[in-house]
């Protein structure tokens, strides 16, 4: 590649970010702007008996008040489970649920106004423990009236292939283990924020910290009963998402509604505590898993039963339920596979999608069990994995289509770099190595809302000044997708990156992209951007060929020059632009991406389908203090197959960030509850690793060059989190001989096990 593709490329918005010039949602202000104050429920489950607005209504600072019954249309990210309301209607389902809102002249006036709203509640039985939600309860105790059998089960997802239970019975080696995972949350640094502006032409502009402008657009339209063509959603600079900004949110509906009501700009910014309360993080999970092996260490079958604690609303929960099972189909070949996931409703903030969606916890379980089986059989855990990997270009039992697959090379790389063969099992007591692998989708092949549109469209515009502007709905949330758009255009047209600019994530000016979730952006938007700029190039070549009497297919674009190899043509980019635009002016070409048709035709076959899958293998080295139970993750060797690193700087960044986030879930982060209320809704007590807690990292990018990814690329944003946690768990076993079945692995748990063992 002659252009910037494949070269470490600093972000195009880097300078804005280091100078404080980048504008995040809360940094905007508009004339005559109002601020939102929210009234939140102090009860986990209660009927709303009465809302007294009289005192707040008289407050001179308050411009408008809203309650749930005014905008009662339900919404949600998945069209199959729109179970949320902008504000509670009839009843509240978790502590912190929004019940009413005010718009006021200042932030303080909004808070004061909200405090004057008096709500009377009648408490209902609370369901905090998911086990309770599995039982039949009174009709009026049900969290949602639509759940079946009088229970609070939101979704049961189950698939079984080739009778795994029978194969397990016959397996010479078998492990059945129970695991427990605490809930964790994204904890992105920029708190949720939204600004809504009701324009004079009766249109609504919403500026929001969202990963999914398109789905927000749709849901705003539904809830506000405003046609989509009168709504514009814009995503400015965004301070991290990790899945936590990938739902349409209640506060977005409320802010927009208050703007319509007052005909003034309205802003809503959350406090850190409100961000925690909003959650949508990884589901607290309990999991029983059985895996069998034959005498050679070949996996015979896997069966698992999972309960995920969904909290009060659906969010991505149906997808999460499936992902807990279907994403066990790689990186190992498992032909007899079964799972059942039950997602319960409980009276807690809802859980949803978080980096590595649905697959992080089952990945921990399976990798730990494989480690145990390797010990049972007496073979090296790396060798056992090597024997079981899926090959390239194959189908899994559930008909996931595997294309490129670099998992062997990943494992060989970290094994070599960590000097595994000489060190595993041989380090002094208290120090250990652990290995684990991973597997993840590069975008879901099926869109959330089924329709005949492509999953993404990119427009590339060439103008007289020689500049290319890329119009894309893609949401750069820090992963660097804007930079990739520029790199691709520069690559395809042989121009410097400064000739390319982006216009992104604005539903008025940019074509639809479904959003930044499920690791789809580089793969899908990359393909579309490539197509759009290829088409620009072809258009230019056609015009130049005609004018200069050369064959269009001989024309090359490189180093800001347009030429043929034989030298008959050699003109500057600008001259080519002039020729191409003669008689037509600036023009736009469009590219798109639609996933190929994939998958089987059984119910649930759509879950986990992706045009390509990423793979990885990590090895962790830990030091455990057996007297205190403290664990120090000292080094992680990471190898991730992202197909092709379009921007190695960004790929490394994603892997390093995944290590950090995985480490947090492994050893210190958990959402604690007391009486249904989060008790560590701050960074003192929700313990994210800081610089001094983060290990040394040795990152290897493995390039398997996928046939369908743009330039061979697959994903790198989520897959790298999966191996982190189990490699740490397995390293703790190597260090002190104990198996940690409960996350986070805090010192008290280690100490208990060490003492039990000794």
């Amino acid at each position, binding site marked *: 590649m002659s252009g910037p593709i494949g070269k470490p490329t600093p972000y195009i918005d880097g300078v804005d970010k280091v100078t404080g010039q980048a504008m995040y949602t809360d940094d905007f202000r508009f004339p005559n702007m109002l601020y939102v104050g929210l009234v939140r429920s102090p009860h986990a489950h209660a009927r709303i008996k009465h809302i007294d607005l009289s005192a707040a209504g008289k407050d001179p600072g308050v411009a408008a008040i809203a309650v749930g019954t005014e905008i009662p249309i339900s919404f949600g990210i998945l069209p199959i489970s729109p179970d949320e309301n902008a504000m509670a209607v009839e009843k509240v389902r978790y502590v912190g649920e929004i019940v009413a809102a005010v718009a006021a002249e200042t932030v303080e006036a909004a808070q004061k106004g909200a405090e004057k709203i008096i709500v009377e509640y009648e408490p209902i039985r609370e369901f905090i423990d998911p086990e309770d939600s599995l039982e039949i309860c009174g009709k009026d105790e049900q969290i949602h009236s639509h759940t079946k059998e009088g229970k609070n089960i939101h979704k049961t997802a189950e698939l079984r292939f080739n009778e795994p239970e029978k194969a397990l019975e016959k397996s010479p080696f078998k492990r059945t283990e129970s695991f427990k995972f605490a809930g964790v949350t994204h904890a992105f640094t920029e708190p949720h924020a939204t600004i809504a502006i009701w324009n004079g032409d009766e249109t609504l502009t919403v500026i929001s910290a969202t990963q999914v402008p398109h789905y927000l657009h749709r849901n705003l339209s539904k809830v506000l009963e405003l046609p989509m063509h009168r709504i514009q959603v814009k995503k400015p600079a965004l301070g*991290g998402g990790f899945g936590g900004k990938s739902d349409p949110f209640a506060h977005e509906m409320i802010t927009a509604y208050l703007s319509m009501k007052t005909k003034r700009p309205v802003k809503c910014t959350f406090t*850190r505590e409100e961000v925690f309360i909003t959650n949508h993080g990884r589901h607290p999970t309990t999991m029983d898993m059985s895996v069998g092996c034959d005498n050679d260490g070949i996996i015979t079958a896997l069966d698992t039963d999972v309960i995920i604690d969904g909290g009060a609303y659906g969010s991505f929960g149906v997808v999460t339920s499936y992902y807990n099972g279907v994403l066990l189909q790689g990186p190992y070949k498992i032909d007899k596979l079964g799972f059942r996931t039950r997602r319960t409703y409980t009276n807690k903030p809802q859980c949803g999608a978080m980096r590595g969606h649905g697959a992080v916890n089952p990945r921990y379980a399976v990798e730990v069990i494989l480690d145990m089986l390797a010990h049972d059989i007496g073979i090296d855990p790396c060798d056992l994995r090597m024997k079981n990997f899926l090959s390239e270009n194959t189908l899994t039992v559930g008909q996931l289509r595997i294309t490129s697959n670099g998992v062997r090379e990943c494992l060989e790389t970290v094994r070599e770099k960590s000097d595994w063969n000489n060190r595993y099992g041989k380090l002094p007591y208290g120090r250990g190595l652990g290995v684990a692998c991973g597997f993840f989708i590069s975008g879901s092949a099926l869109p959330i809302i089924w329709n005949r549109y492509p999953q993404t469209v990119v427009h590339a515009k060439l103008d007289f000044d020689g500049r290319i502007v890329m119009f894309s709905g893609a949401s750069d949330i820090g992963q660097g997708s804007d930079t990739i758009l520029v790199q691709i255009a520069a690559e395809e047209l042989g121009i410097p990156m400064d000739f390319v600019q982006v216009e992104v994530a604005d539903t008025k000016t940019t074509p639809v992209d479904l959003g930044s979730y499920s690791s789809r952006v580089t793969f899908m938007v990359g393909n579309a951007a490539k197509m759009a700029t290829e088409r620009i190039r072809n258009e230019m070549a056609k015009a130049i060929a005609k004018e200069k009497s050369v064959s269009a297919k001989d024309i090359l674009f490189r180093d800001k020059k347009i030429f043929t190899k034989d030298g008959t043509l050699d003109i500057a980019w600008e001259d080519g632009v002039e020729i191409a635009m003669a008689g037509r002016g600036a023009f736009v070409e469009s590219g798109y991406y639609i996933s190929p048709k994939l998958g089987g035709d059984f119910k649930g076959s759509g879950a986990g389908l992706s045009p390509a899958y990423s793979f990885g293998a990590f090895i962790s080295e830990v030091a455990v203090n057996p007297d205190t139970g403290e664990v120090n993750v000292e080094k992680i060797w990471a190898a991730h197959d992202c197909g092709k690193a379009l921007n190695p700087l960004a790929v490394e960044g994603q892997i390093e960030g995944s290590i950090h986030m995985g480490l947090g879930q492994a050893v210190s982060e958990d959402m604690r509850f007391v009486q249904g209320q989060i008790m560590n809704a701050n960074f003192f007590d929700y313990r994210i690793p*800081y610089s001094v807690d983060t290990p040394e990292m040795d990152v290897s990018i493995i390039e398997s060059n996928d046939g369908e990814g743009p330039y061979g690329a697959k994903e790198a944003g989520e897959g790298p989190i999966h191996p982190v946690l189990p490699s740490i768990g397995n390293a703790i076993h190597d260090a002190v001989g104990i198996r940690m079945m409960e996350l986070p692995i805090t010192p008290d748990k280690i100490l208990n096990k060490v003492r039990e063992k000794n």
Partner: protein
Amino acid sequence: MEKVQLNINGFTRIVLVDPHETILDTLRNRLFLTGTKKCCDEGTCGSCTMLIDSKPVLGCLTPTVRCVGKEIVTIEGISSGDDLHPVQKHLVKNGGMQCGFCTPGVVMTAIPYLEENPNPSVNDIKEGLSGNLCRCTGYKKIIEAVKDAAEELNT
């Protein structure tokens, strides 16, 4: 409300503030200097770091009235676009930022840190930045950037 005179990035501003108000809120809400970020508002993340009389402080814990008579330097006062400070330059170059929300705070911590510790080791830098929460990068590239900046400043 109290009328105060503040010296911000070398320029005098007169504002009416509440005696309990923090300098972070004054800058962001009253003066529209939004480069300094509010992430936790309780001292735990370092996003709001700025310099007061050359010393790094957390804007979310500092009452505005306390800054009267002192020199306040915010991220906006460090550079303007082209003449980036080496810390900023290397953060961009090394990919030491992703979403960028923690970045102004990182810059405002690293600059005075390097003034006090011109030859830090990687572990020293980790320690020096141990109050800055970054959820995106895993810190590695931030630390490498600060190390490179130290080297550039020393030549």
